[in-house]
């Protein structure tokens, strides 16, 4: 990979230890590169300074695009492109359009959000991300520091003092 990073990371055995350590870092304004956990740990986001995800706003926009596509599409087809009389009903029969408008809203919102989710996370089929530690998807929790932001000595001292069971450094 083009951009190699030198990282120092500590392994914690429990999410309570991890949260406590992240809180210390938050209070002392130590820059954490990232935290890796095997499952979503609640309470982590504000301490890491992560702003709330805006994915749901994107979802709303995609959904509205779906609604409009369905509504405008059916309107154009039945009034302009090929008006057909079905059982003597008006060409533009809005109530009958509602089910398809709803379905396309849901369809566009979910496909759009899922695609956005993978793109902004840099995840996708065939993506290979560097593995920091194989146990991080099992039962270990990790705080990683980029040595360009936090000096190696500071990072190691922090990790040891907050109860990391292991401290390692690595180039990823």
């Amino acid at each position: 990979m083009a951009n190699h990073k030198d990282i120092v990371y500590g392994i914690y055995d429990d999410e309570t230890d991890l949260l406590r350590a992240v809180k210390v870092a938050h209070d002392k304004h130590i820059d954490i590169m990232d935290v890796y956990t095997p499952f979503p740990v609640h309470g982590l986001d504000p301490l890491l300074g992560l702003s709330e995800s805006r994915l749901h706003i994107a979802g709303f926009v995609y959904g509205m695009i779906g609604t409009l596509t369905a509504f405008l599409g059916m309107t154009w087809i039945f009034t302009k492109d090929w008006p057909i009389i079905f059982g003597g009903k008006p060409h533009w029969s809005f109530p009958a359009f509602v089910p398809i408008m709803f379905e396309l809203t849901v369809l566009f919102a979910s496909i759009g959000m899922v695609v956005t989710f993978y793109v902004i996370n840099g995840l996708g089929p065939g993506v290979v991300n560097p593995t920091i530690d194989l146990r991080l998807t099992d039962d270990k929790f990790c705080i990683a520091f980029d040595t360009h932001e936090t000096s190696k000595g500071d990072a190691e001292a922090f990790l040891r003092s907050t109860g990391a069971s292991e401290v390692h450094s690595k180039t990823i």
Partner: protein
Amino acid sequence: MSSYDSAIREPLITGHKTYHQITEDLASPTEKAPNAAWIIGFLISVSLLAFGLFCIAWTIWHGIGTWNLNRTIGWGWDITNFVWWIGIGHAGTLISAILLLFRQKWRTGVNRAAEAMTIFAVICAALFPGIHVGRAWVVFYFFPYPNTRGPLWPNFNSPLLWDLFAISTYFTVSLLFWYTGLVPDFATVRDRAKGFRRKIYNFLSFGWTGSAKHWQRWESLSLVLAGIATPLVLSVHTIVSFDFATSVIPGWHTTIFPPYFVAGAIFSGFAMVLTLMLVTRKILNLEDYITIEHIESMNKVILVTGTIVGVAYLTELFIAWYSGYVYEQFAFFNRAMGPYWWSYFGMMFCNVLSPQLFWWKKFRRNIALTFFLSILINIGMWFERFVIIATTLARDYIPSSWSYYSPTWVEIGIFLGTLGLFFTLYLIFTRVAPVVAIAEVKSILKSSGDQYCGPNAIHHHDDHDHSHHDHDVHAHGDDTAALGATTMLADDQGHEESLQLDQNPTAEAIVMDEPETTKEETITRAEVKSDDLKKIEGIGPKIAETLNLAGINTFEELANTSTERLQEILDNAEGNFGGNSPESWARQAKLAAEGRWDDLNDLQEKLDGGKY
């Protein structure tokens, strides 16, 4: 986010699991060679599928004339099967979406398999309209796209076209939801795998790392998908019911159809989830993750939806009579007393009467009975669709067109083929992906694991009895992470961090979400030996606090306090505890102090809010 969990809430993960143990238990089925039961099941399923494919080929080659449909009976087993399969799919989305919005933790044990079931059931369902059109090779005419036929568009006013949109959307959204949930678990399997398997799972896991920001977005995505999948799942069977309800056929043309179809769909779906999960938990040894508590919860849903369906059946009969409309009246008379009476009474027995057994807790928690009833309900819900479709069409407006419809071997073969397809896909799924959502189960361990809640919980937050701790630490292997970090560090004298942490004796009790002001209170609580008094039926967190203030901290102290004294404490306390009667507390506390949890459980079963 601190939430209050009732002290009587049962654990959802048993066996004192650690995080690592959860990974082992749930990921290992994908790593081992299949056992004999799986191979036999797979061979049967694939044989059925092969026969089904043969029957489909037969249908396409010879035409729909190979089915026993005729001029008036235009829908037979095909649409019956279509509605049945679509209905089964609904439980998966209900469990994964609606129960997520309601924060029902028991969903984590069954959501993965239920969602997989949804996807496979929708595939089976979509097959039927596809071949029913006769010329399956031009089935893409369904879809609106600019074409060289005019361009000629489909009829957007037709419920059949709404159905196409509803089902394709439903399938897509279910698949995306399911796969996004699977990605972190595929990463777990990837990190345990070597060689070629590792490559495959790396591809499937999309390069997942477990970064905090990814988890945050993942949770946000799951929540919004759940939010939009909830109206979606309600819309799908509503639209399926429109296929009937917007027609002018007596017996179909009713406004009760949408809610009645949705309730029936959830009902049949939960029956299929139970059928599958009871077998899966046995074969893959998942009893610790899919507990009796899960089964009981699902049986409650079955009871409610089954009863709604029963009310709908009776409402239909009443409205047929009350409307004074003779054709409607004939349709219902014919269902119960006509040539297909056996399917009507089969439906009534399986769907309305049989689930009523679940009013009794004893039956809800009986696995053999649950399995038997789940099969009955699957059959009953198939009968329901058959009753609606076949009995109505076999007796239409013109008596000269009346006939008796029974399927040909081709129609039966295609149905068996979809059963084969469904089970083939499900069996492959159990080998490839973790059947229980690993990450989601881990995230509820601290609140619903049996070492944290329920009668066997280890009170590592309040209880400072060290001999008790040592025992548990050694009994449950080397991974003591889940039992509280301080305990472990205090045991391990050589550990470099122990000194640092010992200076902060309350560290284990500080939960990051709690505001700073509660720290002091935590210290006082941690210094005295105390038990969780909330385990006594009738004592909630407020009363427990009151008793602690009065100097009663352990079960033993409570057992030695007279009822009069307890009443006095309650009377003098702030707050209104008038409705609480402490008469049974001493007896309960005695059992708790002696560690007789089973006896305490039996006693609490008999008590009503702590009263005799």
